């Protein structure tokens, strides 16, 4: 009796809040995605799979493939830059580590708009990079509004998502394992390939999935750095909702992305849990 009361008081408020403001909005999206589009009244409650059928058409496939491709490149670059940083932080002494974490968390917590703004200044026509080119005699070039600019922006925004899980994984590897390999004559490259990567693979996998799922639904970076050319899923949803009012189609795309993200994240969580269990049983 007492515990029922406690349960009601402690868990009910948030549960109800999330049902209203999280579950119902997403159910609404799924329902809307099966409604019929109407140019005059936005949608009419007649069930159809037309919206999903449009998702296999050429123009959408182009955007989809571009988004998935950009996400992949961004993830790979995050691995390349993230591994050394994660290793460094995992093995750093406490003082260095706390400064390092501060410098990693700060950009993560500052609004994505502001970080992207910084890149606009750096890569713009009269920006830092172009000024340097100009000073050594090159012509000014348009660095923005192409895919590479978007990749730079995405990588920069999402790299902490890679570093944090990787760091946690590397911390669990005992330094003596590395030392043993080194003493037996392994080069750093070998240590990295044969010891660190295999033993930190859970962190690597969850880092990759986190970065990838964030990158394929990014909006701010492609909107500000991609110009009109680099259309991606996140922008497409925004445009369809707020500019052309094709709500049912936008709902279908959102549903697709929610399902994709759900799958990616459950895999990431399962991997983390599996490795935690193995550690306990060891």
């Amino acid at each position, binding site marked *: 009796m007492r515990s029922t009361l406690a349960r009601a008081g402690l868990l009910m408020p948030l549960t109800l809040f999330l049902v209203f*403001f999280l579950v119902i909005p997403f159910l609404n999206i799924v329902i809307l995605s099966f409604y019929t589009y109407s140019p005059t009244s936005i949608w009419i409650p007649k069930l159809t799979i037309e919206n999903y059928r449009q998702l296999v058409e050429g123009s959408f496939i182009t955007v989809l493939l571009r988004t998935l491709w950009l996400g992949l490149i961004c993830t790979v670059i995050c691995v390349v830059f993230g591994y050394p940083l994660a290793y460094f932080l995992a093995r750093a002494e406490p003082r260095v580590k706390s400064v390092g974490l501060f410098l990693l*968390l700060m950009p993560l917590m500052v609004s994505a708009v502001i970080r992207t*703004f910084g890149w606009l200044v750096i890569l713009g026509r009269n920006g830092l990079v172009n000024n340097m080119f100009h000073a050594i005699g090159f012509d000014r070039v348009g660095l923005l509004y192409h895919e590479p600019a978007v990749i730079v922006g995405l990588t920069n925004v999402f790299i902490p998502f890679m570093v944090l899980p990787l760091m946690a994984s590397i911390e669990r590897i005992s330094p003596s394992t590395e030392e043993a390999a080194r003493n037996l004559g392994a080069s750093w490259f070998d240590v990295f390939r044969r010891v660190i990567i295999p033993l930190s693979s859970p962190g690597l996998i969850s880092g990759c999935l986190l970065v990838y799922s964030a990158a394929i639904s990014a909006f701010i970076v492609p909107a500000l750095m991609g110009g009109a050319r680099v259309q991606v899923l996140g922008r497409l949803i925004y445009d369809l909702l707020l500019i052309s009012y094709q709500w049912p189609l936008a709902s279908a795309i959102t549903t697709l992305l929610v399902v994709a993200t759900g799958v990616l994240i459950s895999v990431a969580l399962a991997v983390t849990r599996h490795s935690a269990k193995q550690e306990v049983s060891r």
Partner: protein
Amino acid sequence: MKRDQPKLLKPFVILTYVLLLAPLVVIVAVSLSASPNYEFPPSSLSLRWYEAFFSNREFVRSFFQVSLVLGLGAAIISAVLGTLAAIGIVRLQFKGREALEAFFLAPLFIPEILFGAALYLIYARLGLRPSMLTLLCGHIVICTPFVIRNVTAGLVGLDARLEEAAMSLGAGRAQAFVKVALPLIQSSILSAFIFAFIISFSDINLALFISGPNSTTLPVYIFNLLLFEGDPSVAAASTIQIVIVGLLIWTVQRIFKARVG
């Protein structure tokens, strides 16, 4: 203890940090430059863009009357809801506890742009006009997972015997919790509160969809100016945000250190 490390590690890590921090450094520099052309490095310094920022009424409104108020509101409400839920999850035994915890943490994993779209559509369908309140509800959803994580971690690390001792001395269960456990997890709740504030204060993805003409947050205002190439007062506004967020994270780190050491 000095251990051997690959020689290239340090230079590479420094390069990574330079790339990570470059955008922020450039913005701070531009905001202090006298030139109106986003000049970097600045040739002369001035505070004119800060003056321009503070004399722009809409800008100041979006900062003080929208973003700051919203951040505080979201932090307070999500700290209360999240703390209650965390206590329930750690202290109550019931079936489906793990599933409920996963449900509470779910907003952490849903890309905000999708959640923004979902809220936009449900509000539109229910005929609710975008306002501070509609945005506040969205922010509470994305802030509470951070509170739950923080407070759960604090509660799990707590020695249950402390409360048992209080109870054996005659305190009721609730009284023992409030008088013994609550003071001990204060710092967890405080850092959760600060994190929640930052999340709301920096959010753009939800605000883009569901902020109305009277609830334009600072990030949305900056975003709109960037689309139409505003003057460096955007950089001044951004710098103020960078400083606030930096100070808050530094505070959280202090709190943690005080707790551990």
